[in-house]
């Protein structure tokens, strides 16, 4: 969850090769903490495929709501997202249903003709145990056209490389680094539920928080089934602007003072 009043700007990219055509897809994200229990996020997706084209593939708007007022062993968060993307979207922000490498191999000029207006919901369960962060996502997605419900999941664990901070300011301190592993994939649809003909990935992750600066994330995902891409790389950079409302008010009030002089 984002802290209330803070705005996080992030750019997350994924690169892989599908059908012999390497691609790079990215999602530009704006995440805002509305309340301590409510975070909202807006995404703009785009991709470029070698030998084909570069195109904008759509937008998403998601809201995360924390359910319980205090911490427990398991802390549920409800996630609701509206997606208006086209079939050429390759950001792979989630894998659901029977999503597979053959979907990503469709040429852009054909895939982009398919409009996907989808409602995605997740139950996110988070726990913090002895410095470890454990998160489980159960994903339910519905194309608002006449498509069956699709299911997916993601499980991740991560831990900072040190559980205590060092007294001095340092860029490469172990507490600034976080390592983990994620497993995610599809779980079929209402018509064919289960692991059969689904994509499954395992991905080690590394995160580096620069002091009072951006956070960098890297991960390499390895496909575990025939439907999956053999390998995909993710890279992300995010930067948080604290109390963005106050910062804007401050700018306006200083401009007002300047003009009053």
């Amino acid at each position, binding site marked *: 969850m984002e*802290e209330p009043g*803070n705005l996080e700007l992030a750019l997350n990219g994924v690169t892989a090769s599908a059908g012999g055509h390497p691609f790079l897809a990215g999602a530009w994200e704006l995440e805002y*903490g509305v309340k301590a229990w409510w975070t909202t996020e807006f995404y703009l997706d785009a991709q470029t495929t070698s030998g084909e084209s570069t195109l904008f593939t759509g937008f998403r708007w998601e809201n995360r709501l924390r359910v319980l007022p205090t*911490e427990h062993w398991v*802390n549920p968060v409800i996630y609701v997202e509206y997606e208006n993307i086209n079939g050429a979207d390759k950001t792979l922000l989630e894998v659901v249903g029977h999503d597979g490498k053959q979907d990503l191999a469709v040429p852009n000029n054909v895939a982009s003709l398919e409009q996907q207006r989808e409602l995605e919901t997740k139950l996110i369960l988070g726990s913090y145990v002895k*410095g470890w962060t454990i998160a489980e996502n159960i994903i339910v997605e519905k194309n608002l056209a006449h498509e069956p419900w699709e299911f997916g999941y993601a499980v991740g664990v991560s831990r900072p490389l040190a*559980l205590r*901070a060092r*007294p001095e300011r340092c860029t490469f301190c172990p507490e600034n680094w976080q390592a983990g592993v994620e497993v995610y994939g599809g779980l079929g649809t209402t018509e064919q539920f289960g692991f059969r003909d689904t994509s499954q990935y395992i991905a080690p992750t590394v995160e580096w928080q620069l002091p009072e600066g951006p956070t960098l994330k890297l991960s390499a995902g390895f496909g575990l089934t025939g439907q999956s891409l053999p390998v995909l790389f993710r890279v992300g950079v995010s930067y948080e602007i604290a109390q963005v409302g106050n910062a804007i008010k401050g700018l306006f009030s200083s401009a007002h003072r300047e003009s009053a002089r």
Partner: protein
Amino acid sequence: MTRRSIHLVAVLLCSSAIVLAASKGLPLQRVPISAQQRANPIDTNDDNRRAGRKLFLQECAPCHGREALGNRRVPPLATPMVRQAKPGALFWVLRNGSLCHGMPSFAHLPEDMRWQIIVFLKSL
């Protein structure tokens, strides 16, 4: 509407009222007694105070200010109330936050880092 549905709605309304009532009051005043008794397991030495200051600037200062003086909407932390609070009470507030007052949970930070922040807060 069946009697069972009415009972269900009544139970939900009562539960919401209890949750809201329980969440009123300043965060430090809502800390359970058992949580207040928890002792700080790390040394209150200068290294941990400095590490706590570093974490404070990263995690808390964006809202409470670099000098912990707060603003119109966010309370100050450099106060006698915080200095005199039991470390266990401060730890409970950091772990749970106070959602109705706009303070998020900091449970994602490892426990020792939260205690380092408390060492710093108690030194203000």
